């Protein structure tokens, strides 16, 4: 991804973005998306390496959930990124689990 998406800051003739919509359902989805693109841009993996894992995660989930309850696209994305980072040696599963535990143990209001 050498090309930065060029911004469109069109002038007076620009129609309003009335066909836009909320892109992310929760803040973690946008962090996850932004992190994935930033890591790719930093050259840590080829996009197809990620895409192949995303496809594998989606396929496995659909096989395991024939009724497709509680589908979450970004949960599959998260699983794909995590497996890629582990495969690349950037994170170890135990390290991730420990970090999750530490974050979950924070007192309420930790973020304000």
């Amino acid at each position, binding site marked *: *991804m050498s*090309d930065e*998406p*060029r*911004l*469109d*800051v*069109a002038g007076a*003739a*620009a*129609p*309003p*973005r009335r*066909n*836009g*919509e909320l*892109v*992310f*359902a*929760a*803040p*973690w989805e*946008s*962090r*996850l*998306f*932004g*992190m994935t*693109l*930033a*890591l*790719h*841009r*930093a050259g*840590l993996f080829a*996009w*197809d390496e990620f*895409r192949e894992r*995303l*496809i594998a995660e*989606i396929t496995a989930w*659909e096989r395991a959930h024939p009724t*497709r309850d509680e*589908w*979450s*696209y*970004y*949960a599959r994305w*998260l699983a794909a990124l*995590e497996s890629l*980072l582990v495969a690349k040696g*950037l*994170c170890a599963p135990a390290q*991730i689990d420990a*970090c*999750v535990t530490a*974050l*979950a143990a924070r007192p309420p209001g*930790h*973020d304000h």
Partner: protein
Amino acid sequence: MADHAHDDDTPEALRTEALETLLREKGVVDAATIDAVIRVYEEDVGPLNGAKVVARAWIDPAYRARLLADGTRAIAELGFAGPQGEHMVVVENTPTVHNVVVCTLCSCYPWPVLGLPPSWYKDPAYRSRVVRAPRALLAEMGLALDETVDIRVWDSSAEVRYLVLPERPTGTEHLGEGELAALVTRDTMIGVAKVKASS
């Protein structure tokens, strides 16, 4: 914003935060870069870009020809390029042919011209049904097509991303390029809706 809210402590939110924390500690990514990426896709890249491509094609036959011959290059003429838009193919709707786009395997989508995909595009139901029963699915989505219309389903891939060039509605002959672009919605460029003469 490094101090982004942690209000959402679902397992996915915590795990995402954990990954970001670890990667930032390693110095392979920083919060400002992530913020910048998010801002681009939330605020700047979206279906408006595709709408401008469509409007230009409607008013400029030479551009339309270039667009159908080499989508990537013609779209780049208007300044739209970037990740997930490197290999664009534009397919044209006519009174007898209707095109609709899907990614059956995951969620491939032409980001530079449409932004990020809507949730239904990523849904297993859309991804499987649009291939098996496109006419019925489109009807459910509000687009009833005559039986005589040939429906073509385009499955996006790592190699190719598709953009539908919808039909220009009648009664828009007097409109300028910007006014035309305002009529073109995201759904019409995926192929699950038709452009209406008034927004």
